[in-house]
């Protein structure tokens, strides 16, 4: 009844389009899940008896430790940036997002390369100080190393969300605590952390999903996790059924995490408080506190961005430049694919989010869940689900052509369409969230005002919603763009002929240990992502200034 009411209120066209998009997103996943109901794969018992506990332990340790450390690091930094003023703060407030520009697998190669026996650190110690230390001090390729990599390159998710949350909090909250005689660390642990729990948990659950889905780092470090196990059983043993079972177990872990997140957030949602409140005023730091804050923030920036970049520059220099033309070519492919796909995905997300806005909260929650599904499923699983779907479509086209003589001449599998579609399945959730939070910021009254002024849903969308969504669309576009630039498993499995992106090429070189050749490509990739992050943060800043004026 409620649904019917809403459909009447909205426009059937939007609902139909949304239903179509949702169906498209679901089919590839269903294709895979169907395999679960068949009989267990031939290797299932073997995997269960000898390997499962190991996968489970490793995945859990990685996910929880990285999630927790990223939460503390991200929240702590967000607090420092939001509450204090010190030289360099302006730069750090976006500089600390930059580690996100470096894909964790590239970070892993760089750090391993740096600390290895043949890396610059040990070579330097050996040649200049005749110092040869036990290798265990430099042992990076283990769970601890992986946790470090994930934490240092993924914490910005927590940082971003917590910082945004804190910037909307009232200054009087802090001032009253200070007046009550609490010192800053008490305020952080007793007031700020519990208050921003929702944002911290949301950010760190993003980190945990990324960790659980990561393939590059764990493969390189030789750590067995669910993701490597899925690859191993599926592609190594050719046993889809067992791989799907593992994938479903990984998804269960995700669902438990999401449930915990809900629990930890205490059912509270962000309230986009109006501009009436006086935002946090930053306190100027002096003396040793200033130095400490700078040391900490710049330290994180150094390890999360500067050091790896410098190392890559050095390697790029060692490899004497590589082939500039080739690199530009891959950059162009990455750029066009990322940009084009981001536009398409965002278009879909806008349609779905607009419908969600016109719907009951139940429906809009459901839509949010479905769109985020692709983000929680391992990339390899999506890849094969999409491949199967496209093959089915091709079959249908072929059938229409031969059966009815309809001239279609269309092959989707092995084309760019297939890859872009897979990106859509994976990143629709991010796009949806961007658009949706944009809508939440706008509120309902503009939409309603336009309706009472005689404009229908669709006209209102183009004249009011779309222009007002621009900042949200812009940052959504850039976020997806960065994700696609870094994306690996889908691109590796589904790419069309003669297709190389910066990420795949860098990974190929790196996994061949031609890390010097990988360096150029990684640098270009990092440059693009950095530029995108700069645009996001500075676009928002300009916007904020305009409102304040």
């Amino acid at each position, binding site marked *: 009844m409620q649904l019917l009411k809403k459909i009447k*209120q909205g426009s059937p066209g939007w609902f139909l389009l949304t239903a179509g998009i949702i169906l498209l997103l679901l089919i590839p996943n269903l294709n895979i899940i169907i395999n679960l109901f068949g009989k267990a794969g031939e290797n299932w018992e073997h995997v269960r008896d000898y390997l499962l506990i190991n996968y489970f332990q490793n995945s859990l340790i990685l996910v929880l430790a990285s999630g927790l450390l990223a939460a503390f690091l991200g929240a702590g930094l967000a607090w420092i940036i939001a509450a204090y003023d010190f030289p360099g703060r302006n730069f750090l407030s976006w500089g600390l997002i930059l580690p996100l520009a470096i894909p964790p697998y590239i970070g892993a190669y760089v750090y391993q390369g740096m600390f290895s026996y043949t890396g610059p650190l040990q070579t330097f110690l050996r040649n200049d100080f005749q110092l040869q230390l036990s290798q265990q001090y430099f042992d990076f390729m283990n769970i601890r190393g992986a946790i470090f990599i994930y934490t240092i390159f993924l914490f910005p998710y927590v940082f971003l969300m917590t910082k945004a949350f804190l910037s909307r909090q009232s200054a009087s909250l802090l001032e009253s605590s200070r007046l009550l005689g609490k010192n800053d660390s008490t305020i952080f642990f007793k007031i700020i952390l519990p208050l921003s729990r929702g944002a911290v948990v949301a950010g760190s659950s993003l980190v945990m999903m990324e960790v659980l889905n990561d393939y590059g780092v764990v493969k390189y470090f030789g750590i067995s996790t669910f993701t490597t196990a899925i690859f191993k059983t599926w592609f190594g043993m050719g046993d889809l059924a067992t791989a799907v079972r593992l994938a479903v177990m990984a998804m269960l872990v995700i669902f438990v995490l999401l449930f915990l997140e809900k629990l930890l957030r205490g059912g509270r949602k962000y309230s986009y408080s109006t501009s009436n409140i006086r935002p946090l005023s930053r306190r100027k730091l002096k003396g040793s506190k200033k130095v400490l804050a700078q040391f900490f923030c710049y330290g994180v920036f150094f390890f999360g961005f500067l050091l790896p970049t410098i190392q890559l520059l050095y390697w790029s220099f060692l490899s004497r430049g590589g082939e500039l033309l080739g690199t530009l070519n891959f950059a162009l492919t990455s750029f066009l694919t990322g940009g084009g796909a981001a536009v398409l995905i965002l278009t879909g997300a806008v349609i779905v989010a607009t419908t969600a806005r016109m719907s009951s909260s139940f429906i809009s929650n459901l839509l949010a869940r479905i769109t985020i599904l692709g983000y929680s499923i391992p990339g390899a699983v999506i890849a094969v689900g999409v491949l199967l779907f496209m093959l089915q479509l091709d079959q249908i086209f072929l059938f229409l052509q031969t059966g009815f003589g309809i001239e279609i001449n269309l092959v989707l599998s092995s084309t760019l369409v297939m890859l872009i579609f897979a990106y859509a399945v994976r990143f629709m959730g991010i796009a949806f969230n961007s658009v949706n939070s944009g809508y939440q910021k706008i509120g309902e009254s503009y939409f309603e005002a336009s309706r*009472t002024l005689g404009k*229908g849903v669709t006209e209102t969308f183009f004249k009011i919603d779309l222009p007002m969504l621009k900042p949200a669309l812009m940052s959504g576009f850039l976020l997806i763009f960065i994700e696609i630039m870094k994306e690996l498993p889908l691109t590796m499995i589904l790419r069309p002929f003669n297709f190389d992106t910066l990420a795949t090429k860098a990974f190929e070189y790196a996994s061949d240990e031609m890390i010097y050749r990988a360096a150029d490509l990684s640098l270009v990739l990092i440059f693009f992502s950095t530029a995108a992050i700069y645009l996001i943060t500075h676009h928002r800043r300009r916007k904020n200034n305009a409102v304040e004026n």
Partner: protein
Amino acid sequence: MQLKIDNLTFAYNKKEGNIVENFNLEVQKGEVVALVGVSGSGKSTVLRLTAGLEIPDSGKISIAGQTAAGDHKFKAAEKRKVGMVFQDYALFPHLSVEKNIAFGIDHLSKANRKARVRRLLELVNLEGFEKRYPHQLSGGQQQRIALARTLAPGPELLLLDEPFSNLDAELKDKIRRDLNEIIKDVGVTTILVSHDREDAEFMQAREVLMS
């Protein structure tokens, strides 16, 4: 009869019960009516139902003799010719004052449109503000622009949602006076919602108490 509401019932959420129950109201053409009640009494919801922003669970709404809701019919908000001034004004921030006011009358020719915008700005005493943007206006100015925008298409019914709640005491008196003048000037049938009975008295409106 400009507005007739029969046995109107509505709930946002079945579990929380009806916020509007068997509500009846008749408003004559040119009349000014004030719905007065505490928050949660459903007065704003009646406005939203009248405007077509919510769909009633049962009951009937007729505007200028035509059924807007009820009898298994539902007229969408954009087809009702009902104007509404929102509590937060909802001026489109990306459009200039001129474009905001012209938003509902883009079926007119360009010259007619311009003339009408100018006339409305005169009416609300804000001549020369065409090129400004909403964020460059004070709260009182924003409200008057919102009113001008709402009046532009010549609505059958004007709805004002808590028009004085965002204003400080000093400004309030002036705004009430201005608003009253404009409404009487245009002669539009008006329903306003307020939690303050003083507002109703000031606007010389017929009071309808809601509980």
